């Protein structure tokens, strides 16, 4: 596997060999805290490397690793005397309490200046409770509205909130339908009952209501559903003209395949996650062609950057990798600007101004600027579409790479 | 002629508990009918289980037909010609009578048919009730029928030694008598029998020789008739 890149071994774990490696974290408090100029800047990366979200965790790690390696190759953080970035990567598992423990460990044992992660909203929220109390910046691409909705001072969300993304999933679709002269007045919403599905569908629902549309079906289904036939039976009976599924990959494939089996050819406009990863196209092949999905960002908006990822890891830069790379890029700028290893100084630098150099510029909306809640005020979601096996940006027009089409491939 | 079964200095214990058998010695000739009598906790079942290998770990020696058994896996012993009909019958409750019997054929390495069919016929002749009940599940049989099935199942192994543990337990006196008639019949056909029986007088009346086991040790042995007349036996086990 291309992803199995090893990470720089820390000095400490080099000293401690074999079984003694287990004792290494114990020794940490006694390791000198004196930082010389060339000492690396430790950055914590907490992502799920096992369990159901492992793929997304690995993608995220790859994105961050790519940027960190580029920074180091280019001479590290110049304002810190060329100090290299040292990533401290750990498995958050899928348990919030473990994710929080891991973050705490990085802060007290590894003296990280900042934490990046943790893909899943529940994990990110749990981590933010620790980073907030330890006054340390947390950069994330999790969608949940709660993340920047609690008045926390040390959390920075580089993407839009779930409600914004959900609303865009609907609004953009309407705009495209109108432009292409498609009639769409009856819509259906299907979502998995996870934090992601629930909060994104809220934005979707509100936008549909605001537009005065007829929501003929609005149904949550259990995460990990093994048979969506009952769901599609309901959908078929509802008379919907289009469906907005918000789901991870397994469900998205089940939904599309079952729709086609039943001869249901209404378009499905995906809610990111399962719809915008390579496995979606690999799994559905031709059926994936023309499928639209909302996404917080897309690789083709900055191909000069994202091609480096494709080159190194062998697949296109999926959005979670891209946004985590942006987190790392933004952090680099803040480190340069603050010229400090003090987390609070870095936080100040993060909170001020627009970050638009290098990887920071890859995010939608001319660089990253955090508002007072820590939300990236510049970002906007994009509508993407599978075309000839590639995920292309088709909306909004100002960033679109190709024109959208309204087509549904039957099986 | 060497003995069929030769038990020497056999000791057994469960876990770290006190020994259940202590240096037991026992011998059984080819085609002989021997009984072991003793009180409830004397270790009779343990002795039988040691021979068939389903009991606790043992020390000492058990030779069958000149071959050391303690080194033979329990499931391999029936193939040597040992059939053990355990206390409580242990028929397979969710198998028909026929299937219960067919299990015996399996151990002999043959699919039903050929020799197995003839054996089955012989067993049905011996226990006509089993033929009537051939399609019934083992668990639904009466106690006496289950005992017949258990014995029949053992005979399917074509044993040279049939070990029986309390076959009359819980059965009506009439059935017990019938059962013992059958045992005599089986013995007459050339099968050696080692019988443990609570009904001491009955056991000594069918067997040719007997051993008395007390607290894990053999305390007395001799021809059945002698034992039946022995005062100590009469007092302890016959309540006379």
């Amino acid at each position: 596997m291309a992803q199995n890149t090893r990470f720089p071994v820390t000095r400490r774990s080099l000293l401690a060999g074999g079984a003694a490696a287990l004792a290494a974290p114990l020794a940490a408090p006694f390791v000198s805290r004196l930082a010389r100029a060339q000492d690396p800047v430790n950055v914590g990366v907490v992502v799920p490397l096992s369990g159901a979200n492992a793929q997304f965790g690995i993608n995220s790690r790859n994105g961050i690793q790519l940027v960190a390696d580029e920074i180091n190759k280019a001479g590290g953080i110049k304002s810190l005397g060329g100090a290299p970035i040292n990533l401290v990567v750990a498995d958050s598992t899928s348990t919030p309490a473990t994710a929080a423990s891991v973050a705490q460990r990085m802060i007290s044992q590894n003296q990280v200046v900042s934490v990046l992660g943790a893909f899943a909203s529940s994990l990110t929220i749990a981590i933010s409770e620790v980073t907030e109390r330890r006054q340390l910046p947390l950069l994330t691409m999790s969608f949940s509205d709660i993340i920047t909705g609690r008045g926390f001072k040390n959390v920075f969300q580089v993407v839009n909130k779930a409600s914004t993304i959900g609303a865009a999933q609907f609004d953009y679709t309407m705009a495209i339908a109108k432009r292409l002269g498609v009639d769409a007045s009856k819509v259906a919403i299907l979502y998995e009952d996870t934090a992601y599905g629930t909060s994104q569908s809220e934005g979707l629902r509100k936008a549909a209501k605001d537009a005065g549309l007829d929501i003929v079906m609005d149904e949550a289904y259990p995460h990990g559903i093994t048979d969506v036939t009952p769901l599609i039976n309901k959908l078929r009976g509802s008379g919907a003209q289009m469906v907005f599924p918000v789901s991870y990959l397994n469900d998205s494939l089940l939904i599309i395949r079952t729709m086609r089996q039943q001869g249901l050819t209404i378009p499905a406009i995906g809610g990111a996650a399962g719809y915008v990863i390579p496995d979606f196209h690999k799994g559905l092949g031709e059926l994936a062609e023309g499928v639209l999905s909302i996404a917080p960002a897309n690789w083709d908006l900055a191909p000069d950057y994202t091609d480096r990822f494709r080159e190194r890891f062998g697949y296109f830069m999926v959005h979670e990798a891209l946004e985590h790379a942006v987190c790392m890029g933004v952090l680099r700028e803040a480190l340069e600007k603050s010229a400090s290893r003090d987390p609070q100084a870095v936080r100040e630098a993060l909170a001020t101004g627009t970050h638009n150099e290098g990887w920071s510029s890859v995010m939608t909306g001319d660089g990253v600027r955090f508002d007072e809640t820590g939300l990236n005020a510049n970002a906007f979601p994009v509508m993407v579409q599978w075309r000839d096996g590639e995920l292309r940006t088709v909306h909004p027009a100002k960033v679109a790479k190709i024109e959208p089409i309204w087509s549904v491939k039957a099986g | 002629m060497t003995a069929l079964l030769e038990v020497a200095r056999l000791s057994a214990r469960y876990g770290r508990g006190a020994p259940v058998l202590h240096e037991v010695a026992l011998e059984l000739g080819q085609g002989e009918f021997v009984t072991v009598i003793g009180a409830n906790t004397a270790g009779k079942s343990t002795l039988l289980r040691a021979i068939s290998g389903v009991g606790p770990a043992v020390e000492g020696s058990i030779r069958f037909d000149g071959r050391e058994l303690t080194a033979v896996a329990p499931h391999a012993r029936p193939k040597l010609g040992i059939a053990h009909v355990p206390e409580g019958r242990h028929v397979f409750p969710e198998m028909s009578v026929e299937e219960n019997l067919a299990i015996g054929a399996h151990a002999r390495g043959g699919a039903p048919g050929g020799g197995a069919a003839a054996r089955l016929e012989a067993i049905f002749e011996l226990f006509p009730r089993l033929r009537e009940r051939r399609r019934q599940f083992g668990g639904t049989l009466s106690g006496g029928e289950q005992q017949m099935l258990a014995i029949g199942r053992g005979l399917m192994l074509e044993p040279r030694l049939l070990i029986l543990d309390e076959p009359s337990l819980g059965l009506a006196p009439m059935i017990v008598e019938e059962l013992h008639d059958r045992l005599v019949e089986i013995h007459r056909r050339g099968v050696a029998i080692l019988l443990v029986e609570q009904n001491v007088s009955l056991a000594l009346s069918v067997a040719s020789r007997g051993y008395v086991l007390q607290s894990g040790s053999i305390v007395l042995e001799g021809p059945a008739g002698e034992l039946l007349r022995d005062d100590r036996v009469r007092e302890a086990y016959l309540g006379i």
Partner: protein
Amino acid sequence: MQLLQALVDGLLIGGVYGVVSIGLSLVFGVMNIVNFAHAAFLMLGMFVAWFAWAFLGLDPLLGAFLSFVLVFAFGCAVQQVLVRPILAAPQVAQIFLTVGLLIVLENAALMAFGADFRSVQTPYQTSAFRLGGIIVSKPYLYAFAMALLSGAAVWAFLERTAVGRAMRATAQDPMAATLMGIDTQRMHRLAFGVGVGLTAFGGAVILPYLTVSPTVGSHYVVLMFTAVVLGGLGSVAGAVVGGIAVGVIQSVSALVFPIQLQNLVLFVVFILVLALRPDGIVRRRGA
């Protein structure tokens, strides 16, 4: 009509649930062990079928046989090395051994195969037969047919062969089985191998409409337990009936309750059945 459609869907999916649950029931019946890692073998079977499809071009319906063979062999080894030593241990230790095994297998798969969600493409996976107004999904129907076929094969094996009979004897009375010359340890190994192999087979035949990743088994754990408990732990036929019951409950309950609550409906039925008929709906195990 809606009800009929729901019944058909429930039957098709339930047949598959049933067959993947047979192994769980078999292992319980023969060894008296509840195998929490059982679903991980489903995942392994799916991976084998996926690789057979990707590299040999084998349709998963055929790759299923390969899944069975490989996972059967692996299962025998697992039984020998890990399960056998704790057969006499307290029930809690057995439960947690299999929980540990689940963690190990999932993460071994993650390290070996990566976290990607893999799925196959077959010509029939998005088509269906139409009978009157009823839609019968082809991949579901094929999976159902293959599942029933393998279920019937196991049934025939258990009922009609000498080894199968010996296995049942071991389940019903291990001591008596030993006395009848049956190598019970071999039977345990075989039962475990067949049990997980069958689940792997079931995993392979559902691959045409699903995706496989290291954690896919977790979606089936609860379904499998529900199926075997509804059918009666240890009963092979019961597992199939229980599986079909689970499928039909899921599919019919969706007509009345929100789909989000389909598992809640299942759990309530599960607990009620246990409370009223602790030995399952199919039959009573003998003494």
